[in-house]
């Protein structure tokens, strides 16, 4: 369980980072809470790790005119502790409590989680439910992508080699908005068996397919009917179990005031 050899660089500026990321065998290292396990298990063996944790442009949470902007390097622990998030992005504040365990939350970042796009992760579903915007940069330009178009498939996103996710913008909650985050796990902090990030009419499931599954809210019956017929089974739960549990969460969200 030891990683293969690689070189390590910790750039102090974005231009320096982009110059290093020109190498097609380079990989971005943020909190390392998903990448280092993959290296240890030798599922990945990059030539170079570019540690982005020294880049100030990717840090911090700020209140903008219409959104809360969260820098890619913000850790799960920082999001949980943030008053601005609690006040303006209640769905995310509910969801973050389910992300991993204390020691992992101190290092794992929102940018890393979104860039990884694990189908059972909490943030991607929240980003889709809230119609958030991901801010992506390469050495020349910045582009902005809606969450719905960012997640393409199993661990697959719109990010291209040489690009960095710099921040994510969550629209500010309005009076009367209803946000409910629910998930089922065997143990607190584990990845979800299945979960639901619901914001008003947008109901987004995690753990149900290779990427977040967005359903439009209709009647309870009609919404339930839109659930995928045969969601992929995981190691412990059959497809039928997953579909059943998704229905249970939908009802719970329905009955949450």
């Amino acid at each position, binding site marked *: 369980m030891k990683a293969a050899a690689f*070189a390590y660089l910790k750039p102090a500026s974005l231009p320096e980072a982009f110059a290093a990321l020109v190498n097609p065998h380079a990989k971005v290292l943020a909190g390392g809470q998903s990448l280092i396990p993959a290296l240890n298990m030798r599922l990945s063996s990059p030539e170079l790790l570019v540690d982005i944790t020294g880049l100030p442009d990717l840090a911090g949470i700020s209140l903008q005119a219409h959104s809360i902007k969260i820098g890619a390097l913000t850790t799960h622990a920082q999001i949980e502790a943030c008053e601005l998030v609690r006040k303006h992005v209640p769905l995310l504040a509910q969801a973050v409590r389910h992300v991993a365990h204390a020691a992992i939350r101190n290092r794992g970042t929102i940018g890393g989680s979104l860039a990884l796009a694990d189908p059972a992760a909490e943030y991607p579903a929240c980003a889709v439910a809230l119609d958030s915007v991901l801010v992506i940069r390469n050495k020349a330009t910045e582009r902005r992508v809606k969450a719905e178009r960012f997640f393409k498939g199993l661990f697959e996103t719109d990010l291209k080699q040489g690009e960095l996710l710099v921040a994510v913008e969550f629209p500010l909650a309005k009076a009367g908005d209803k946000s409910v985050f629910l998930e089922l796990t065997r143990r607190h902090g584990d990845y979800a068996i299945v979960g639901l990030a619901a914001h008003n009419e947008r109901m987004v499931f995690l753990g149900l397919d290779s990427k977040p599954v967005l359903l439009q809210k209709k009647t309870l019956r009609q919404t339930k009917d839109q659930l995928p017929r045969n969601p992929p089974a995981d190691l412990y739960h059959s497809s039928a179990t997953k579909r059943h549990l998704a229905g249970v969460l939908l009802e719970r969200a329905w009955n949450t005031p």
Partner: protein
Amino acid sequence: MEHSITLVVNGTKVSRQVEPREHLIDFLREKIGLTGSHAGCEHGVCGACTLRVDGQIVRGCLMLAVQANGCRVDTVEGLSDSKEIAKLQKAFHEHNALQCGFCTPGMLLAAQDLILQSEKPTREEIRNHISGNYCRCTGYQAIVDAIEEVVNGSR
């Protein structure tokens, strides 16, 4: 290529050469001789390698030694010598909260982290906070009892 790193381990400044692939847990165990923190699963699941870096608990197997350059690292040895976790250790002993002891250093660091950040955590909150630490012997009940006794200040 090796990198030279300087960090403060349990209050003592150390400088060494490390390969980028060297994990912080292995660096501490093999280069510094601090074998209190254990390497179990080595992919972030069991919590046996829990350390404190700049005051926050982390997985020693999910951090590279080179990333700890300039950091302050505390291990179970340091927290034992300073007596910071003396009450927890006594409670673990009295409640039989350890058998083989493999998980115990990580468990103590996770428990101490909760004690530092929470006034009077409930049993549920204690369980949540140690959810990332596996114990294959005790069944957890005694561990939660021991932590609860310390947080309730009955000693």
